[in-house]
């Protein structure tokens, strides 16, 4: 009798047992997620280096070769790397100023009513699946480019246009957030000093939101870099070095999407695709790092 009571008093209470259980559940969840990330990185790295380890293809040839002919055991990935960077930079260069301009107009100039109308519109555009953007590219952008510049219309420029349309809403909405985060007092102080609205924008608002704006740009470009199907639909998919903007090309993502289904697992031509995926992975990590560095600088 006493023993039982003693046990009850000295042992863990129902409350602390529950606490332990709850803690355990949440620990397991976070470990699963952390483990998942680790597994993804390890698996993709192992598959990605198989071309160099097992098939003894040289890394340098892979990165600098311009011939991608799996049937001849030639895996030069430079055309794809160049095309991926080309379309990303092109789309980003056009999208950034426009996103900034729209964000400035919405936060600093236009009335609340227009803002209330535009907010859900931008949210909708952010949510539109990339395949739909690709399809728009296929049915609107490509025929127009064909009429304007001749040729097939498929190519780098078409892909850049599609990516531009795709990342513009994301970049705009992030830029709007960053401009809204600038304290109201800054604007008041600047106006109090007799600055015009433009002076306030260019000397106060943009400098203080600079790192967030940059983050928005990098984020948009990393989305563009990793986009697969929308690009694959309009880029033309020829794995040769593009010479001009209207040239048909292939990006890292488009080669992967078209190739994985047509190659046999474990063969060199399949491993080469995994190496391309590894480049994608490394680039997305690099974009991530860039964002971290920039936002840490901004926090200071």
């Amino acid at each position, binding site marked *: 009798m006493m023993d039982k009571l003693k046990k009850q008093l000295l042992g863990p209470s129902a409350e602390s047992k529950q606490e332990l259980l*709850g803690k355990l559940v949440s620990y397991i969840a976070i470990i699963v997620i952390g483990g998942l990330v680790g597994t993804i990185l390890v698996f993709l790295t192992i598959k990605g280096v198989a071309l160099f380890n097992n098939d003894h293809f040289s890394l340098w040839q892979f990165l600098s070769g311009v011939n991608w002919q799996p049937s001849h055991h030639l895996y030069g990935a430079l055309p794809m790397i160049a095309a991926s960077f080309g379309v990303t930079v092109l789309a980003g260069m056009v999208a950034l100023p426009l996103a900034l301009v729209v964000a400035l*107009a919405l936060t600093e100039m236009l009335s609340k009513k227009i803002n209330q109308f535009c907010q859900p519109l931008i949210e909708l555009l952010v949510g539109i699946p*990339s395949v739909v953007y690709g399809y728009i590219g296929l049915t609107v952008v490509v025929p127009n480019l064909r009429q304007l510049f001749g040729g097939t219309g498929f190519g780098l420029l078409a892909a850049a246009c599609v990516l531009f349309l795709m990342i513009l809403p994301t970049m705009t909405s992030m830029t709007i957030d960053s401009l809204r985060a600038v304290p109201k007092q800054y604007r008041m102080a600047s106006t109090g000093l007799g600055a015009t609205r433009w002076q306030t924008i260019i000397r106060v608002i943009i400098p203080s939101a600079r790192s967030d704006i940059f983050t928005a740009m990098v984020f948009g470009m990393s989305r563009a870099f990793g986009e697969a199907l929308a690009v694959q639909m309009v880029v033309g998919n020829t794995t040769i070095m593009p010479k001009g903007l209207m040239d048909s090309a292939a990006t890292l993502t488009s080669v992967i999407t078209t190739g*994985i289904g047509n190659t046999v697992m474990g063969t060199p031509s399949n491993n080469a695709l995994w190496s391309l995926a590894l480049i994608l992975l490394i680039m*997305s990590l690099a974009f991530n790092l860039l964002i*971290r560095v920039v936002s840490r600088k901004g926090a200071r």
Partner: protein
Amino acid sequence: MRPEKIDRIATIVILGLTGVVGLLIISLLVYILATGLPNISWHFLTSSAEAFKSEGGIRDQLFNSLYLVVITMIVSVPLALCAAIYLSEYAPANRLTSLLRLAIEVLSSLPSVVVGLFGYLVFVLKFGMDFSLLAGALALTILNLPILTRSCEDALQQVPYLQRQAGLGLGMSKWRIVTKIVLPAALPGIITGIILSAGRIFGEAAALIYTAGQSSPAIDYSDWNPFSPTSFLNPMRPAETLAVHIWKVNSEGLVPDARAVSNGSAAVLVITILLFNLLARYVGHLIKRRLVK
């Protein structure tokens, strides 16, 4: 030039460019809806797709998309919620925590095609699931986890610390505080996050073409046994979603009315996303009303 004049010019340029962008975007939306809506009919929504003939519908694709969202949510919501509880309530401020946060950030920045490849390698080949709804749902879970974890954590963080202190003062354990006080208060925010992320994965395609597959075998909507191979509930059958359908119809071009089918499908996708957003907005509206009370 006087500053006032520069200001006026800048204002005109900014508003002008904004007008051009706005016009471009609105005409884009109008184009999608105007070309798509005439193709949407009851027949289009309720008949199955044709491989070589015209007049095919999108019934199976639409159902697959929705079903995939449901399965993904069943897997990812508990996981993301528990992880968010850990990050918001238990995580000590140390290196391990920041490493975990970094891991989640890395996960959210992975291109979806890379996630699809990983799913193909692990779920489809290693685990032998073949092209199946389940493999697709797991790949989508990977895409969904970081977004959902972050929005759940934000929702939990919005609950004032005072309420947690009140619970502690009553001698409640931390876990009980989380489940009885914090979670109910954060529920509307969590639901908004879930709906928004559901909208995002609804239109995902790149992660699915090599996990859920690109084919849609005939399925039987009267067979409610999830283990029967022809049942619409069977998670082990290959399933082409709406977004994948648009891509496939356009890249293979075997269907004579590919344009009509994809116009209609694109409009259905956009309208569904719009519905998801409106729903999320409505739930957000409910929170505000509850907070005012």
